[in-house]
């Protein structure tokens, strides 16, 4: 607080109160830390500081090496001495339909094959709403003959006729 010549008793009093509060808080923290230190509750301080130091050092090292053009493990040789194409080209049988699929394209295939995914879900809700429009008043939708749930859209039925297991 500045020593103003024209500091009013009012502002003097407020700085006085402020300083008291500040002192009180500082002693509070000092007292707490003193106890923690004497009772050995912070015995891991050194270990923690070492970890911080190692991480800071690591970041500096990595920043330096990235400037010299490292990383990017794709298109490199792995530790077993192998190289791999960008899209996995192992071929195996789909366990749903039996077709031969390339590994890197398996997920999108399986999605359609199992009738899952956003597109399949959108398709089914679209068709069920169309049906509901036509069969107003009929509690069971014509498109879900195997459904044992109320036809208010909760039963998801897929093009291949199988019910979604939840």
């Amino acid at each position: 607080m500045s020593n103003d010549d024209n500091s009013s008793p009012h502002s003097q009093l407020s700085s006085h109160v402020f300083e008291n509060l500040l002192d009180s808080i500082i002693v509070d923290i000092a007292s707490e830390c003193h106890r923690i230190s004497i009772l050995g509750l912070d015995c891991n301080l050194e270990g923690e500081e070492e970890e911080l130091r190692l991480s800071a050092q690591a970041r500096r090292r990595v920043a330096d090496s990235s400037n010299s053009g490292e990383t990017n493990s794709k298109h490199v040789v792995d530790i077993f001495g192998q190289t791999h194409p960008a899209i996995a080209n192992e071929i195996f049988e789909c366990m749903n339909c039996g077709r031969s699929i390339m590994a890197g394209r398996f997920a999108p295939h399986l999605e359609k094959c199992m009738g899952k995914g956003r597109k399949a879900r959108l398709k089914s809700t679209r068709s069920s709403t169309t049906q509901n429009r036509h069969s107003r008043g009929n509690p069971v939708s014509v498109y879900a003959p195997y459904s044992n749930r109320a036809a208010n859209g909760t039963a998801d039925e897929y093009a291949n006729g199988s019910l979604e297991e939840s």
Partner: protein
Amino acid sequence: MSKRNLTYTNPEPCSHLAEYKQNHSSRGYNSLQPSLKTNPNGRTTIKTSQSQIPRCGSCSADEGRLYFCLICSSIHCPDHAILHSQVGHAIAVDVDRAELFCCVCNDQVYDPDFDNAVMHKQMKLKKNPQNGKLETPDKKRRRKVAILERETEATEGVSCFPWGLRGLNNLGSTCFMNSVLQAMLHTPPLRNYFLNDRHNREICQRRRRIGRRRGPPEMSCLACDVDAVFLAAFSGDRTPYSPARFLHSWWQHAANLASYEQQDAHEFFISMLDRIHEKEQSTLQPKVVGGDCHCVAHRVFSGVLRSDVTCTVCGFTSTTYDPCVDISLDLDPRNIASTLTGCLDLFTRPEKLGPDQKLHCEHCGLRQDSLKQMSIKRLPSVLCFHVKRFEHSSARRTSKKVDQYLQFPFSLDMTPYLSSSVIRNRFGNRIFAFEGDDACKAPSEFEVFAVVTHTGKLESGHYVTYVRLRNEWYKCDDAWVTRVSEAAVRASQGYLMYYVQKMLYCRGGEEMNCMATSPRHCCL
């Protein structure tokens, strides 16, 4: 620093405190008890008069530190306290903090008997609700851990590439799945469970066939498919493996997540644990009675969180316990140099509940402003930290990724975040045997063994896992497995960090090498 076996270092008293104790023992402490006042947030002060503020008996000063003499009950400011000590009254109590003070040494001093007296006063006033049965040491769990340790003793062998290290083919935006699978493959207790044939596929298939006669068509068991992935990874074959069957199986079980698009690795992790739990639960006998679930997913990852909600008016605390399989941490937006321990500090910090979250205080009988504080009641064998890097708006239309670097240690001591530490801290770290303290220190030292990182944007990002084997770090980037420096891992942007209890890490077969014989024989 030497490893401490006790919770506290018992502090040596100064000569003045020792003399005081000899002459007065705990009389002074006990006579002080009526003047001790504890705030609802756990802080204790000295309050001698209901109507007047404390003042120095010599100069009437009422600001700064004031000391209450334990022998004659007079109050003095620091200067007059020193004078007072010359008449032989050296030991006083800081009025503001209820801490012992030696006016000759001019330093804060400690006495377990004093802390005991303070805590007893607090216990008398606070109505701490009993929360179920007292914690009994979990002998069963320790025995199981011992079995795992015995069975994974290092065997002699030719040193070559670490066992179980194998690339996983990306099947089309499935790096979120590959990254978590790599972490699971090298989670010591999980690896030991599957490699020790604890989930026997033949027995499981037979059980499912029996179940198939009645009820709906039985799907594959996810734990069986996890077992198959373990077998493939530890087979010794180093060409990348395609976890296609696993993907198919998971999509059958987690229909809501079944779609060809980049997904959240954390969501996948939780989903996988849920499915394993579901399957194992139905076959576990006898059924778990009001206690822990014994499925492998929970035995490995499940811990218990404690939540305390304290009324800010009367101090009444309501405590609840909830199981958890991971700890999700918020990044501090203001903190540029943020750390994992800093996030844990935030996680266990008392949080003021908003005005719209006022809780009904049983003691006061009405809704009051409350403080909520989280802590860890029981640590799991394997700790998964989830860094909340993806912020989604409620409509999930606007999401963004937080790229802030988070420092994480390789060796982590979780002691400060345990319920025992947090509650003790709430009451000023008094030397006192709190309820729930273990006689022997609960294992709370952890070692990191897998880090799943996410680089790039929210929608078009890429997951990669770093695994630690035989104290070397390997980067598992789908099919590509390369060795990286420790520095590369320390500097990486962690999204999921997996830590295992230190004793499981050191003994858990980190010396395992690749063997010519089949994996099943090696672990027995």
